[in-house]
């Protein structure tokens, strides 16, 4: 290499660093555009009526998203009831049995479950619940979302509980505390913040999911708290309104997008705050 090449090499170095900065900034720009656009279009339609009223037919002014808010709440609740006990218990099993065939299989299954496209989960919930029950229902939508939450909860529970010092467990066992009480009263509380973080992150993951609800929860223009009937949800409402030809519905969809983004991002930030503690 010639000696005067050093300048070329330094310039190459600078150019590379500059390119890395430029490309990184460019990839953040869409985030800013999307957020700005949603805030700009969303805030205008948000008022008390928007949050508390039911949707109105096309042509009538006003109308709100109350049923979608309640529906999303119901779906998340069902998903949590299904996935949290199962996921936390499986997570505890993994942190207690670090090796072994079943533990290996569970880890692999959780990875694969995590990667299954959400639309496929929708098909499954349709075949398992909608077909036998003969109708679309909040229950089937909730279970579909629960299946999506499960792998996140399993993994975060396992990872947090592994971080709890082994001495803590040994101390409890040495004092004669039974094994199950050691786990429930010592290990689990010690890792509680991590488990909670996992639960919040998994809720954030499913709150905006639309694909598994298309043919399970299906959507409905009414306020319905019966879990055996179709319910509306925020993402479904956004999808239906956004793909409709009416400008006033588009405006409502922007408002709903704003509410949904705020909800999901709040959950993400909350999870971060809890995990720092």
């Amino acid at each position, binding site marked *: 290499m010639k000696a005067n090449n050093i300048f070329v090499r330094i310039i190459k170095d600078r150019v590379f660093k500059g390119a890395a900065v430029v490309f990184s900034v460019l990839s953040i720009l869409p985030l800013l555009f999307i957020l700005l656009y949603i805030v700009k279009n969303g805030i205008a339609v948000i008022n008390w009526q928007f949050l508390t009223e039911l949707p109105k037919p096309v042509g009538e002014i006003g109308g709100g998203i109350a049923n979608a808010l309640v529906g999303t709440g119901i779906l998340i609740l069902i998903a949590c009831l299904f996935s949290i006990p199962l996921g936390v218990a499986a997570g505890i099993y993994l942190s207690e049995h670090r090796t072994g065939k079943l533990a290996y299989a569970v880890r692999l299954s959780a990875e694969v479950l995590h*990667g299954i496209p959400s639309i496929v989960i929708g098909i499954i919930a349709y075949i398992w619940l909608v077909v036998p029950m003969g109708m679309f229902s909040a229950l089937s939508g909730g279970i579909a979302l629960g299946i999506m939450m499960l792998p996140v909860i399993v993994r975060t529970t396992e990872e947090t509980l592994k971080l709890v010092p082994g001495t803590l467990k040994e101390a409890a066992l040495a004092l004669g505390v039974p094994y199950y009480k050691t786990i429930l009263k010592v290990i689990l509380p010690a890792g509680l913040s991590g488990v909670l973080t996992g639960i919040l992150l998994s809720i954030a993951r499913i709150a905006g*999911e639309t694909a598994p609800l298309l043919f399970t929860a299906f959507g409905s223009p009414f306020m319905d708290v019966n879990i055996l009937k179709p319910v509306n949800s925020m993402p479904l409402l956004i999808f239906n309104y956004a793909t409709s030809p009416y400008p006033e519905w588009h405006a409502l969809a922007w408002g709903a997008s704003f509410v949904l*983004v705020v909800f999901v991002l709040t959950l993400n930030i909350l999870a971060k705050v809890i995990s720092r503690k």
Partner: protein
Amino acid sequence: MIQEKIFQNTLYISAFCVVALLIAIFCTLLHASFPAIKEFGMHFVYGKVWDPVSGEFGALPFLVGTLLTSFLALIISIPFSLAIAILLGEYLKKGVVATVLKSAVELLAGIPSIIYGFWGLFVLAPIVRNMEIQLGIIPYGVGILTASLILSIMIIPYSASIGREVIRLVPADLKEAALSLGATRFEMIKKVILPYARSGIFAGILLSLGRALGETMAVTMVIGNSNFLPKSLFSPANTMASVIANEFAEATETLYLASLVEIGLLLFVVTMIINIVGRYIIQKMSVET
């Protein structure tokens, strides 16, 4: 003690349930798509005609649509995610800028796909349409290109965060050795970090491909929903996920439904293989270092 037994068994059964769930999902998909598998066999994969009315189902247009959008999205996203990974993994390890960039990438991953689709439909599609008018082609606005652009934004966070982690795994003494021999930082990155982290970066890209293949809502909203083989990058198409989203609720005949489920089964198998391979590479890499 009886509680002890119950507790142990509960843990065992819960763990077993996770595995059983996966197996049950696979078996259900296989069972429900059986009529289509039996009727069409391999023809399903290369059949060009998807016509529910005449009962002919060939999934080739959707396979092509999925592969085109995913790989195009991957190609667009690689420079960006690599830049973020190198910047966060090597140049900016901590500090305010690094935290801001990292949180922004995380937020990008947190935004629901329906919002990307909505934004893509109302902001990106008109931009693409204007471009198409200037180029003098039929201005659909929606189509493979628009879907790929949206997808590429959506998958940047996945490959970027995995890339950052594997770049951090490169041992400091290797990097210092290169620097002390007089290499510039760029040369060190090119000759030490990238070769060392190559397999991990590849795994990150592979996992983001898995995301792109299965992404449904954003793609459904901007791809234009056409059941024919796409003629160019600008033409409307359908992906495997979007055709399920569009047609599943209205599929009443057994064969129609089974064909859609078979597409779901294909998606399931492909993403499963991608995930297992990707995780395996990453695991191997973190064990070695």
